[in-house]
């Protein structure tokens, strides 16, 4: 029976449309507790552990942003390293001018978002594959331009100033909190955006772009907003990266490996759900930590797993979980509840490119 006949065949009071199910209250509470516990980590764990977690926050932020781009807006960008680099360089430039790197972080986020506008203008006409390589060329171009300025380290980069005189323990703790704040804010921003008008427009475009356009959805504007938010988010991750590494090196911050990391974490975790990148980040960090002594192997394995998942388990690890227990930690879709029956999800069709 089709959904339409099912809904029209019943009296109106028999069903209702809802975003959340019973468990959203406790998942919200758990999320809050997790964040609070994580916030106390610098007091209870060694700095080695917080350093790994900062890396995880960076990966989580990047993966969530890439998921917003590819999973929700259909924009497969292979040039997000441009924003990782820009975020890092904004922090470096401000730190050279005497501003504390931690104060520079929010400026770097805004700066990366603003920088996304002209870059969007350059690539917005391109679709799918051409968009992907064009963003890649853009990232390479941004790096080549930044390498021309010897005052910020030229082609070799330079150490990040602004930490002299600060207690190293305090730096470690502040870096950790900065990373945590960036990751939490990134997830919250994406969640709120997708619950709002933007989420509706993107869902409409995913199902039928022509129909969405003809019903007045401002598709171009929605895509631009996504690109700018993703630029700001990746810039934030880049800023945290610069602070945690204490140095900025163009070939490292502008490396396409950042896009590999964010894409693989997202694909493995589950494209098109907010939970996916979280699961993917955990998988990434576990693989990276266990295979760290085998050089490039973790990227080879991640790449192979991502290819396999993209082909055979398209909704990723989270999709496998979701199929069995049917939960949403971040409900952005809608549910149709029919009388006494079990709630059923509106058909969530996979994206078509």
């Amino acid at each position, binding site marked *: 029976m089709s959904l339409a006949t099912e809904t029209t065949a019943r009296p109106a009071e028999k069903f209702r449309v809802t975003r959340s199910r019973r468990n959203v209250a406790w998942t919200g509470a758990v999320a809050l507790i997790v964040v609070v516990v994580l916030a106390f980590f610098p007091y209870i764990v060694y700095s080695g552990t917080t350093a790994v977690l900062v890396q995880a926050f960076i990966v989580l932020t990047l993966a969530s942003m890439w998921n917003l781009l590819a999973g929700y807006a259909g924009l*497969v960008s292979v040039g997000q390293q441009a924003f990782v680099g820009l975020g890092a360089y904004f922090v470096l430039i401000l730190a050279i001018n005497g501003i504390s790197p931690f104060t520079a972080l929010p400026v770097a986020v805004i700066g990366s978002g603003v920088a996304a506008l002209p870059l969007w203008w350059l690539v917005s006409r391109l679709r799918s*594959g051409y968009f992907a390589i064009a963003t*890649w060329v853009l990232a390479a*171009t941004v790096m080549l331009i930044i390498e021309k300025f010897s005052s910020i380290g030229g082609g070799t980069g330079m150490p990040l100033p602004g930490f002299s005189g600060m207690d190293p323990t305090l730096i470690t703790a502040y870096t950790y909190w900065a990373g945590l704040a960036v990751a939490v804010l990134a997830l919250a921003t994406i969640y709120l955006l997708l619950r709002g008008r933007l989420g509706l427009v993107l869902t409409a475009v995913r199902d039928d772009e022509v129909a969405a356009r003809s019903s007045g959805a401002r598709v171009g504007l929605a895509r631009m907003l996504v690109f700018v938010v993703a630029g700001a988010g990746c810039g934030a991750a880049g800023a945290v990266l610069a602070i945690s590494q204490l140095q900025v090196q163009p070939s490292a911050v502008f490396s396409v490996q950042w896009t590999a990391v964010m894409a693989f974490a997202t694909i493995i975790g589950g494209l098109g759900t907010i939970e996916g990148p979280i699961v993917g980040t955990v998988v990434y960090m576990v693989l990276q930590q266990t295979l760290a002594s085998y050089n490039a*192997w973790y990227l080879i394995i991640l790449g192979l797993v991502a290819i396999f998942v993209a082909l055979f388990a398209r909704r990723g690890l989270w999709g496998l979980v979701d199929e069995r227990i049917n939960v949403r930690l971040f409900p952005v879709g809608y549910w149709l509840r029919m009388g006494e029956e079990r709630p059923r999800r509106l058909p969530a069709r996979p994206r078509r490119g």
Partner: protein
Amino acid sequence: MAWVNAIIQGVLIGGLYALFACGLSLMFGVMKVVNLAHGDLAVLAGYFAIGIIAVTHVPVLWSFVIVVPLMAVLGYVMQRTILQGALDRSVLTTLMVTFGLSVVIENGLLQFETANTRGIGVGLPLLTESFSVGSIQIAYLLVVIFATAVIVLLGLQYFLSRSKYGRLIRAVADDKEAAQLAGADYRHVFGIAAAIAFGTVALGGIAYGMYSQLSPTTGTDTILLFAFAAVVIGGLGSLWGTLLGGVVLGVAQQIGAQINLSDEILAGYIVFLAVLVLRPQGLISRGAQS
């Protein structure tokens, strides 16, 4: 005279870029696949050639005879397996799968062949020498590569317009369902197109190893991006456009290098961005937007 020299060198290098670009363009034109692993496959072919020469001690040019068919077979097999599998799902999946392949090939080469750069010794004295026109030195190798690119493009054009498989490829590119109804197995035809594209990639990869040095990262930071820039500058879906695009890119780079040695690559990208903004359909337009 230095400027004339830069332009001549740029035109000749453009032939090499066209070799890379035509495979990318062909795969996009026929299967709507943008192969993000294109450059890494070229580097892989170059490393195959290095390995074959080192193990069997065959003359350098023989490596073409071995590696090009080998890559063509690999292309057919990959198209029939993972690329077709990705295509059956969505365009986004093809991007993710080919990007995954790119990272796997690049890091695999890093792991097994180290990050050192490798060149392919040309061996033939004719190809290592150069002749001079006035005060301009022109390497025979670059002329041979340029001529190879022109021959490959002529061959491709003849193949696509005259041969049975060429007609099939064009039919499938236009409307694969209709071609299927008329009895053409589009999956097989896609495989043949991929085999041709991979063959040109192998040619380009070995030629690049002779002209310059290969390293695991050459595939993405040089070959893929240059090939793509050449395709966009020349015009999407146009075979001869890839030669024009390659030449424009090569000349832009050489002129950039003439102004400031470190600006070679940047100058090429700036021309690419200018074309993207001012003439997004490319210099040779078919009127069709992707």
